[in-house]
């Protein structure tokens, strides 16, 4: 064997090694998962629990570090993920339609959801049309029958709750006005109990304990089928398209994430979401996850974009 071929062989071997290590090496380092809200909230806790479960499905010694990047209704966190280097070491949690709507409104947001490398869907949270527990209203027909402007409470304009309120009332032809600016769903549930306004669309996860205690009453549910004959769902209301109104929580990475890395993350995430320990935690805390993979998530984003585009005029 001449010197030349051995050098060529060495080169080839080196190339092969590099190629192998490129796919074989990931992940070598800790992975950061960006949470677009302050520490302590329901979503934050959920993602932190998921991050911990995710560590069990990654190679030994790789940590998943949760980093809060709150601001502008989740837009800043989305921006941070979008701008990160597509090396698989920065991923983030997204809350739709919260971060979708500003994009449809063509606000200067700095990200494009269609370009995000989607990894998995965590699950969705339907909305409950709620009134105060001692209210005389027992059905949506009662609300319509009042024949006056109905006051609602919600978080800021562009927030999921605000848009859900707009679309719900526009579709059903109920005259309405929204008191905005409540800090999160617990705050406007409190406003509802106090009597600041007539009704509110509350995410199921927040509403459940208050419905149970009788502080608020559910008149309808959108975004999921109703299992209570007293509570109408989108189909019972005669407006099936309202079933699209829900909060969906997803995990995604920056655009142009290499396919091999994306696949590793997707597999690990799905395994983490289906982990028995994680499921036990979900059950003990009353949380629900309905995990789906990357393709379904991307399809869901596209479908939601279409739905909200139809209601563009009610988005702000």
């Amino acid at each position: 064997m001449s010197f030349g071929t051995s050098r060529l062989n060495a080169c080839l071997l080196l190339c092969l090694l590099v190629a192998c290590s490129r796919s074989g090496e990931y992940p070598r380092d800790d992975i950061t998962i960006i949470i677009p809200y302050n520490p302590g909230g329901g979503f934050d806790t959920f993602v932190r629990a998921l991050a911990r479960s995710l560590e069990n499905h990654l190679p030994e010694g790789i940590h998943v570090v949760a980093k809060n990047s709150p601001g502008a209704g989740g837009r800043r966190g989305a921006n941070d993920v979008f701008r990160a280097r597509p090396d698989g070491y920065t991923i983030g949690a997204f809350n739709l339609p919260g971060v979708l709507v500003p994009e449809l409104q063509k606000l200067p947001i700095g990200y494009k959801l269609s370009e995000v490398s989607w990894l998995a869907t965590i699950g969705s949270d339907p909305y409950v049309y709620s009134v105060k527990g001692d209210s005389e209203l027992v059905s949506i027909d009662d609300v319509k029958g009042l024949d006056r402007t109905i006051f609602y409470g919600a978080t800021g304009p562009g927030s999921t709750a605000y848009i859900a309120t707009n679309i719900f009332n526009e579709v059903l032809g109920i005259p309405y006005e929204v008191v905005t600016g409540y800090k999160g769903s617990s705050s406007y549930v409190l406003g509802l109990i106090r009597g600041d306004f007539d009704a509110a669309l509350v995410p199921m996860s927040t509403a459940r304990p208050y419905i149970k205690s009788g502080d608020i009453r559910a008149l309808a549910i959108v975004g999921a089928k109703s299992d209570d004959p007293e509570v109408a769902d989108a189909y019972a209301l005669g407006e099936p398209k309202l079933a699209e109104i829900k909060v969906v929580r997803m995990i995604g990475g920056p655009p142009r994430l290499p396919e091999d890395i994306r696949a590793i993350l997707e597999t690990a995430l799905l395994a983490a979401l289906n982990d028995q320990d994680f499921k036990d935690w979900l059950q003990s805390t009353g949380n629900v996850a309905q995990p789906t993979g990357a393709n379904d998530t991307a399809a869901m984003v596209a479908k939601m974009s279409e739905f909200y585009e139809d209601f563009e005029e009610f988005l702000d």
Partner: protein
Amino acid sequence: MIELLGQAATDLLSLQTILFLFLGVIVGLVFGVIPGLGGTTALALLLPLTFGMQVIDAFAMAGGIMGAVAMGGSISAILLNAPGTAPSAATCLDGYPLAQQGRAAEAIGAVATASPLGGLFGVLTLLLVLPLAREIVLLFGPPEFFLLAVFGIVTVAMSDSQNLLRGLIAAGVGLMLAFVGYDDVHGGVRFTFGSNYLWDGIPLIPSLVGLFGMAEMIGLSIKGGTVAADTAAVRLDGVVSGVRATLRHWKVVIRGSLTGTLIGAIPGVGGTVATFIAYSTTKKADRDPDSFGTGRIEGVVAPESANNAKDSGALLPTLAFGIPGSAEMAVFLGILVLHGMQPGPAMFVDHVQDIYGLILALTFAAVLASLIGLLTVRWLAAITLVKGQILAPVVIAVSLVGVYAINLRPGDIVLAAILGVLGHLMIRFDFPRLPLVIALILGETAERGFQQSMMIGQGDWRIFLHSPTSITMLLLIIMSLSWSIVPILRKRMTSS
């Protein structure tokens, strides 16, 4: 109730739980002392660690942290004029002048007495009103929030009768800073000059580190020398007189604790406002209000009694409605959820024993932290003897690391530096910094409350007269205004 309390105490008294409590206290003291860090950061770091723990252990550790940060934060407020935590900022006002006079040990002695007393008072109040938690939280709607915020700003801005105009100007600047960022009521981002960093507004902790700690260190570097003006006058054995002074001013302790518990219970207003209002009301009630700020021991006792009492108050909305009364409580909420407890109407029924456990942990922690503080005060007070050229760079570096560690945002360091210069200029030109801080904190609450009230009342101003709470708040505002203005008017009348 007594039975459950006893049961909770038994749970807490196992060796393992006491160890976690002790660990929490040490972490709390360290995080409290370093400006920028603080209870919120300590709890956020702890949150994932509590996964595998028993509920009572997690609560013991969290309670240890929350009970101890106040003590740690006030130590740096007194020794360096750099509040280790936001609620300790009010302690700077008279604590630091005391340190400059060589009476740091006395001031720390007062803190170590006033804060556990305030904590105990808060806990007793909490136990009494726990059954009424819902009603209390429901008293405050948007109109009441607006009036409360106005009350807070007015009380603090007008507390210095010699300097009314400067106080109001500082409050105005604070309001301008408070309105930067995302507008939650109408949407849209304001006054950010195209910078993403400002989307979430001007963050409080870097601002406080800049306005107090950095500003002081800039001053010290320019002036040279040590914190204590006359090193010969420094007495390291003043602790006992600090303890005595606190006990002598028991009325100040009770008023401070009551203020702390009440304000702490109002969601979104939080501990910093509680300590500032406790300070301002004590100052106003005093016969010689103008001597505050020059090193009055009551100026330390009042905010310190509020500082630990506020945690008990802040638990009310956190537990009853899942709405945090302070930033620390927001993270604590995460720990609750993590351990399968859903804050809300059922919390007081399903988890009473755990709640009592937490309350006891908070109390033990406050006492334990004070003991540690008292034992180490001799060495701590010696910091005031360290030369400025050594002290300033160390404090500035540690503070900036603390500021950066919260969110890992370089912008926070820049902001702290800018406000440090602003703070230094304010000291030089005799503008009070307190009104700026309080307006920065309450500006958002005031704006939100006003806008929401206008929406709910459909533009009718009478919404501010609709509830007994809001009428009470209005009366308080009028009282606070006349307290400052009437003497001035009277003086003018007599002189003309």
